[in-house]
C-alpha cells in the first residue's frame, strides 16, 4: 500500500479523463483506474468506445470516431503525467480519510490505494433484456455493440430493440449493412430526438414494429429470430432475424458505492445542486454516473472538469501538509 494519492479517479470516459487532464495540469499527480476491457460499454474509454462517428462534440467540424476521441482524451491526460491503470476498482471504503480503494480481491485486508480525494466517473452501461440464453447468444447474432458487429450482417434482416436516440442511431448505422432493420418498440411513439426520428422515418431500410416486446430468442447455436408479444392486446408473434441489437437504455455503474454515497431512486449518484460534491466531503461525482438527464460526452467532460476544480479547491482547504 502506498501513500495517499491526492486524487484517484475511478472511470475513464469523457468525465474521468477530463478530470485527469485538469488535475494533472494542476500537478496533483492523479491516478486513473480506467476499468477493464469488455465488449460492453463498461470498459476503458466508456460508452464512446462502442460508437462510430461522433458528430456533436465541439471542435471536430467533420466529426470524429468515438474510440479515436477517447484515445485522444487519454493521451492528453497522460501528456501531463496522469497515471492510468487498466484495472477495475473492486471495493471502496469512503467512511474515513484517507479513502480506501481495492483493486482485485475485495476481501484483501489492505486496500490497494489510499486517496485524499476520489472522483467517481464510472458512467453507465447498457441494460440487457435478461431473457434466457442471452449470454450464450452474445456474439452469435445477439449484440451489444452495433459498431463492432454491424459489418457481419451485410444483406441480413435484423432488428433493434428500443425507442431512444441510441436505438435509432444504431438502426441507421446498421442500415448501411443490413437489407432491413426493424425497430421493435414497446410503445407507439419514440423518445428519440426530432432529428434522429426524421432520419429513421426517411430511411427506406428501417421499419417499425410498434407496441411490441421481445419475449424470447429462437435458434440453436446462433440467433434465428425472436418471439414477441403485443403490449396492447397480448397477441404473440415471431420475427425472423439473424441479428438483434439491444438499445433499451442504461443503468449507472454505482453498485460499488451502495450504502456509502447518496443515490437517487434510479441508482444515479446524488450531488449537491449545480456541483459535483457528493454527501461525503472529498468525494466528487461526474459524468453519466450522476446524470440521468443530459448524458452527453460534452456534458460529462464539463462535469469532469468541475469535479477536478472542486477536488483541487478541497485539497487546498483541507489538506494539512
Amino acid at each position, binding site marked *: 500500500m502506498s501513500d495517499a494519492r491526492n486524487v484517484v479517479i475511478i472511470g475513464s470516459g469523457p468525465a474521468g479523463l477530463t478530470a485527469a487532464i485538469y488535475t494533472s495540469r494542476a500537478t496533483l499527480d492523479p491516478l486513473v483506474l480506467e476499468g*477493464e*476491457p*469488455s*465488449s460492453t460499454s463498461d*470498459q*476503458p*474509454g466508456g460508452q*464512446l*468506445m*462502442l*460508437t*462510430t462517428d461522433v458528430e456533436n462534440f465541439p471542435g471536430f467540424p467533420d466529426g470524429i*470516431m*468515438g*474510440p479515436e476521441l*477517447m*484515445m485522444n482524451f487519454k493521451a492528453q491526460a497522460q501528456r501531463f503525467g496522469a497515471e492510468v491503470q*487498466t484495472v477495475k476498482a473492486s471495493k471502496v471504503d469512503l467512511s474515513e480519510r484517507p479513502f480506501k480503494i481495492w483493486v482485485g480481491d475485495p476481501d484483501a485486508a489492505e486496500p490497494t490505494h489510499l486517496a485524499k480525494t476520489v472522483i467517481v466517473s464510472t458512467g453507465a452501461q447498457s441494460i440487457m433484456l435478461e431473457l434466457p440464453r442471452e449470454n450464450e447468444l*452474445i*456474439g*452469435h*447474432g445477439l*449484440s451489444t*455493440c452495433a*459498431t*463492432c*458487429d454491424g*459489418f*457481419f*450482417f451485410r444483406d441480413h434482416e435484423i432488428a433493434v430493440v428500443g425507442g431512444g436516440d441510441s436505438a435509432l442511431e444504431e438502426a441507421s448505422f446498421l442500415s448501411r449493412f443490413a437489407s432491413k432493420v426493424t425497430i421493435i418498440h414497446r410503445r407507439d411513439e419514440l423518445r428519440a430526438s426530432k432529428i434522429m426520428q426524421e432520419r429513421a422515418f426517411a430511411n427506406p431500410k428501417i421499419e417499425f414494429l410498434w407496441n411490441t416486446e421481445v419475449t424470447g430468442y429462437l435458434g440453436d447455436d*446462433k440467433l434465428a429470430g425472436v418471439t414477441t408479444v403485443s403490449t396492447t392486446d397480448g397477441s404473440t408473434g415471431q420475427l425472423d432475424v439473424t*441479428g438483434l441489437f439491444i438499445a433499451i437504455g442504461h443503468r449507472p455503474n454505482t453498485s460499488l458505492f451502495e450504502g456509502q454515497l447518496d443515490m437517487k431512486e434510479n441508482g444515479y449518484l446524488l450531488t449537491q445542486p449545480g456541483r459535483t460534491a457528493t454527501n461525503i466531503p472529498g468525494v466528487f461525482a461526474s459524468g453519466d454516473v450522476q446524470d440521468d438527464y443530459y448524458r452527453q460526452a460534452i456534458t460529462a467532460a464539463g462535469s469532469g472538469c468541475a469535479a477536478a476544480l472542486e477536488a483541487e479547491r478541497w485539497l487546498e482547504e483541507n489538506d494539512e501538509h
Partner: protein
Amino acid sequence: MASENVTILSDETFADTVGADGEPVLVDFWAEWCGPCKMIAPILDEIADEQVGNLKIAKLNVDEAPNTARQYEVMSIPTMLLFKDGEVVKKIVGAKPKDALMGELAEHL
C-alpha cells in the same frame, strides 16, 4: 505499434499460418472501427511477448480479409480463435482482461 511477435495475417496467408506445425495460434479478428478491439490490442501484444515459443498471436483485419471471417462465422469482434494443427479448439468472443483471457486459453497451452 504492434509487437514484433504478432503475426499479421491475410486471406492468403491464413491457412498456412494456422495449419503450421508447432505452437498453437490465437487469431484475433479485429477492425479499425471496433473500440473493444483497440482495448485488447495491447494485451495481445503483451501475451505475444510473454508466450514466445508457447503460443503464437496473429491478427486478421476483417475489412481486409472478409472471406476468412465469413468462413469461420465470425459475427462479432473482437473474436479470438485458437488453432491447434489447423483446427479451432477454442472460440472467445468479446474483449476481456488479460487474466480472464489467459484463463480461457490455459487448458490448451
